[in-house]
């Protein structure tokens, strides 16, 4: 015991001694005179390919397309979530950094958090979709003897409303509730609907046309004095060269 303590103290001292050195190297870059600049610099977002699937399995595709179509049904305002590419958007996100929680700390210890702190467990977003969609399929097969995609729209709405309202409990994992799964899908569907088309959703800028958002423009000085006159130009994507 005492030997162990001596060891840890020695290690502590060594690490404290190393600290200034590490801090110095971490803090060593100072900029003066010239700001750094290099030609052809830029890390533009890469437009996703609209073809094929990168994460979802065929069964999952059918379910997710049905879900986004119920969350954003086709009506006089806009096409449905599926035709707007929301499922494609979610697929690309789950296949990329977001799906792997690249920018989040996701090692233990895993403790229950507050509702405001979001998901605290060990599953990545990709893992949560995989688990959630399997549990949803198990639920609809047990209840209706069909997958979610094969249910009538009213039945689909009832299932989604049950997940949202706490009436349906899918077999997920402790710390990952059915309501959380529903809210995650709703959040990602809205992102797919409203995000720049380069990410795979918001096809033909349908949502931006719906709400009158002119898109990735950044200068309205030629219009700013025209009060009560709608902005006349159509929306543009980050990748639109002309507008």
């Amino acid at each position, binding site marked *: 015991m005492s030997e162990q303590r001596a060891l840890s103290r020695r290690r502590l001292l060594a690490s404290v001694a190393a600290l200034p050195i590490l801090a110095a190297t971490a803090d060593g870059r100072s900029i003066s005179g*010239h*700001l750094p600049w290099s030609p*052809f*610099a*830029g890390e*533009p977002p890469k437009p996703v390919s609209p073809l094929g699937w990168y994460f979802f399995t065929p069964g999952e595709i059918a379910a997710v397309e049905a879900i986004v179509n119920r969350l954003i049904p086709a009506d006089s305002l806009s096409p449905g979530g599926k035709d707007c590419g929301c499922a494609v958007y979610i697929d690309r996100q789950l296949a990329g950094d977001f799906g792997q929680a690249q920018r989040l700390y996701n090692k233990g210890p895993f403790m229950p958090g507050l509702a405001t702190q979001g998901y605290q467990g060990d599953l990545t977003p990709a893992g949560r979709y995989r688990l959630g969609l399997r549990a949803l399929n198990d639920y609809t097969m047990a209840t209706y003897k069909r997958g979610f995609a094969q249910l009538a729209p009213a039945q689909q709405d009832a299932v989604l409303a049950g997940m949202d309202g706490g009436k349906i409990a899918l077999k997920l994992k402790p710390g990952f509730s059915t309501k959380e799964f529903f809210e995650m899908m709703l959040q990602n569907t809205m992102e797919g609907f409203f995000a720049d088309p380069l990410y795979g959703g918001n096809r033909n800028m349908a949502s931006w046309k719906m709400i009158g958002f002119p898109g990735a423009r950044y200068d309205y*000085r030629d219009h700013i004095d025209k009060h009560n006159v709608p902005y006349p130009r159509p929306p543009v994507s980050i990748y639109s*060269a*002309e*507008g």
Partner: protein
Amino acid sequence: MKRIFLAIAFAAVSTAASAADVGAGRYQSVLGDCEGCHGKNLAGGVELMTPFGKLVAPNITQDKDTGIGNYTAEDFRRAMKEGIAPGGKRLYPAMPYPAYARMSDADIAALWAYFRTIKPVRHVVDVNQLRFPFNLRFMMRGWNMLFFRPAPYVPDASKSAAWNRGAYIATGPAHCGTCHTSKSFFGADTGLALSGALLQGWFAPDLTGDRDAGLGGWSARDVVEYLKTGRNGHSIASGPMAEVVEHSTANMKGADLQAVAVYLKDLPPSAGNGGGASGVEAQMKSGAGIYRMNCAACHSFNGRGDSVLFPPLAGNALVRQAGAQTLVRVVLAGSKAVATPAAPTGPGMPSFAWKLNDEQVANVLTYIRNNWGNRAPAVSADEVAKIRARHGS
């Protein structure tokens, strides 16, 4: 005792004299922008891509083995004014000895006095990386015979003292024509002096009084402000001129800048830029949409830019040069303006290579070059493609 006094007095006088020389010589190196090619410590290494291959600026510190520490004052004068190094070695005119030939011997001697105080740096430079047969130095003997007309600067008595001082600086030590005067197939000056030229993938603009492409729209005060601070209400120095401003013109004396401005403003207009584009309605229409999306936020819808931060494109001579190479390069690669003590911001322009294809770059540049009263030849997608391939993206 008396002798010691005398010795001290003599030493003090001679030190004072050489200190004055050294100061004057340091200023000559500012005028000549030696650092621009030979590097901050003058130990060489800056690469010059010429049409004949690559030249690397040599070490000109006082190091005896790898620099010019073995030169005598006369050796130095000859290299500067005749392009011949000790041992009869011919220099290439990338070292602007055709311009330095106009410098006075007194200025060259002062520069040498300053060079003698330069810290020796041991640095071997592989200077001559030209292609065969240009790498054969003796060939320069023939070149000199054909094209080199060494002549000291002769003041023009019909002009003011300021004009003559400006002409001496611009055509002598500051060697403006090395970039701004077009070169023949043989790399010799050709055409009207300072009427603009393509060099190392940049188009060095027309400095004559032409109203479209030259400095016809600039006042002498504009010229001084540009050279001193790197920017004025018309333009911002970027690319190679940013380095010239930083190392050289920003450090020139006010009276000398004024003199250069007087001289440049008196240059007769060039033949112009070739006139405006015609039959390019489709390019202009597409260009307007591209301009709105990508350029207007900084350069503004009316092309007037924003004060000294975002240069105007309307009435900007740089936009109306005969050759659009610099513009294409700036749009593709982006650009970083010079930062000087008087204007330390150094605004930058982002790269558009990722967003605009060759045709779109050509369209927006044709639009900019022929809108708001600008008139200049159209830009083609082929031209953009070549520049993109050459400079990478």
